[in-house]
């Protein structure tokens, strides 16, 4: 394995630039950082979503490496096809990672079937979900990764409901339940951790899945200079977690092995995290308390793994 990527060793070369993402976009930061780790031989596949909408506008194309737009539901299937095509022709370089970047809706909703299929086949691909917790490209509509209480344009905060009524789907666990060789959660607020996981994933053959929280100031109702800070805070307050799953073939453990990369003794305030974002503005104190209670239950589960 190559030397660990960190602030000192990371390349100055850019592979994703010149795009028109919103100021403070967390998703574009995730793509940019991941590609710095994966290098110019990476082949990217991106479905309909923010990153393809901001990066693939003919004639201004923003990937310096090979890249393609996929049908919305088909990120993982196109990745499988690319990988198989290269292999069938004997022209896949050792340092080529076939990598997908899809949003939370493109992954947890419409793309889940294709993702499950690719993991089942254990195709040698890396799937990265940049999770900004709603369909941001179409103008902030609820996805199954939108957290409870978040106001979106399809879960308005009104008299009867204060935003999203469902809980965030546990996609990391769903992916891990496939027995995938490697899966991990990350946050663009903890970039070295994320880049390390990208690097680790690239070194493993078979299917890999990374789930990186990537705040969207436009949709979350926060300042464009707060993206990284909020991405840290969501981890620090315990509403997101940094973890890894190594499947049986990688860990040697029957059923695979979970690792919590950060297990804080004390969490920062959930209320402070929620209250600084416009999307949670309508939540009552009781609802905030219920979010905190949900966090504690989730952590009891995580610590039991």
């Amino acid at each position, binding site marked *: 394995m190559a030397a660990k990527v960190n602030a000192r060793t990371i390349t100055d070369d850019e592979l994703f630039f010149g795009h028109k993402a919103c100021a403070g976009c967390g998703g574009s930061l995730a793509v940019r950082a991941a590609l710095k780790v994966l290098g110019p031989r990476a082949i990217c596949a991106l479905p309909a979503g923010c990153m393809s909408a901001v990066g693939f506008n003919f004639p201004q194309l923003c990937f310096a490496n090979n890249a393609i*737009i996929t049908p919305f539901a088909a990120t993982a299937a196109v990745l499988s096809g690319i990988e198989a095509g290269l292999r069938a022709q004997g022209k896949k370089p050792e340092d080529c990672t076939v990598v997908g970047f899809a949003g939370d809706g493109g992954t947890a909703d419409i793309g889940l079937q294709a993702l499950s299929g690719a993991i089942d086949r254990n195709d040698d691909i890396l799937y990265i979900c940049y999770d900004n917790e709603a369909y941001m490209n179409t103008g902030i509509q609820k996805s199954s990764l939108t957290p409870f209480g978040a106001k979106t344009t399809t879960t308005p905060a009104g008299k009867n409901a204060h935003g999203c009524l469902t809980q965030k789907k546990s996609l990391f666990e769903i992916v891990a339940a496939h027995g995938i060789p490697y899966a991990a959660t990350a946050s663009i607020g903890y970039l070295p951790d994320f880049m390390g996981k990208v690097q680790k994933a690239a070194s493993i053959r078979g299917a890999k899945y990374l789930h990186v929280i990537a705040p969207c100031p436009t949709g979350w109702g926060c300042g464009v200079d707060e993206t990284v800070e909020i991405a840290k805070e969501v981890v620090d307050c315990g509403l997101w977690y940094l973890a890894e799953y190594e499947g049986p073939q990688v860990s040697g453990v029957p059923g695979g092995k979970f690792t919590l990369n950060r297990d804080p003794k004390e969490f920062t305030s959930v209320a402070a995290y929620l209250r600084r974002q416009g999307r949670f503005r309508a939540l009552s104190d009781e609802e905030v308390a219920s979010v905190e209670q949900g966090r504690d239950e989730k952590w009891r589960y995580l610590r039991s793994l």
Partner: protein
Amino acid sequence: MKRFLSGDEALAEGVRLARSQVISAYPITPQTVVVERLSEMVESGQLEAEYIHVESEHSALSAAMGASATGARTFTATSSQGLLYMAEVLTYAAGGRFPIVMMNANRATALPWNIYGDQRDSLALLDHGWIQVYAQDNQEALDLALMAYAIAEDPRVSTPFMVNLDGFALTHTYENVDVPEPEQADAFLPPYQTSNCFDFEHPVNMGYSAGPEFNRYFKYEAHRAMLGAVEVIAEVEQRFADVFGRRYPGLIEAYRTEDADVVLVTLGSIAGLARACVDERRAAGQRVGLVRIRYMRPFPARELACALAGAKAVGVLEKDISFGAEGTVFTNVNSALQQAALPVPTLNFIGGLGGDDISLDQMERVFATLENVSRETSRVVFLGVNDAGLGETAPRAAQPAASSRSAQPAASPRAAQPVPANPAPAEANDAEGRR
């Protein structure tokens, strides 16, 4: 070497001989035998290819597109609902100009659920940018698998290619098929070479978006490429004849049309029965002919106009209906006649829906109707439904017991959906407009 093969098997042999490198497919009746045979070929090493066991048709074509984007020769196969499920990806593959070859087993579309043959599935998707060809027999199925790649991969075309086989009538019916030797196939079809693929030395972005200021150029180019396929099809068929000694007739196959007063236009395997009927009527002194449409896209407007120029009546028999209008092939044929300023009366015969048999008796009545076409004839006729009195004025073979074919299924007391009404009375024709 002659082998006794079903249409599905013949097609699979063609894909093997074409040395497809990536196969991604999802099973659906009546396509399944194709993917079973290909799986066996990959397992045994007869075919050196990656077989991707996708979880849906949508992923099948998406994976094929990903593989094609690396420069690999790719194949998928589907049918009916599966084709509709991948419809979204049809436009991606066509717009990306990926020369994927797909076999579609023509099958009815739900509801009512039905696994048998008709052509509503592919004809509903004519506008999605794929070349569409309809085979008549199993030899043609095998040969088309080879020619499909030669045509689709030609840089002047670079367009995906759909080979249609009538469900069961071809896919599951056995015929003697000449299976070429690999050396012959290799001489005909060289490996796929393209610049429309990823390149590690000079990376490319593919499948981008293009706004209103550029979109029309991409679409115009795709249209031009499809029109250009006409010339390439002729070249490829010539080369095919040179290598294999079998000659195909281009976009359409005209049979005894030279001096024909009446011409029936159809497509797929039913052309065999129509040809037999033409021979019978010719023997009886009737000047009738047949046009079998092979390619629906690119559409053979010019070829049809030539073949139909002398006709006094033209019928279109198809296993398809665009509800509230007419058969889609009929619409296309009428457009060709109108463009060529041929004011010939045309009738549309809808038959074979959901695997319904089209009998020789019905075929004879179709021709008899065309021979005696009048203003009273209904323009759109559903064979076995509103065809009462059809062709009655013409000399006919003795009516066999097959008239029971017009009997309707009994209404099930538990059917929640509206069940078919009793045989439609002749008055029902009024709803469709008379000539």
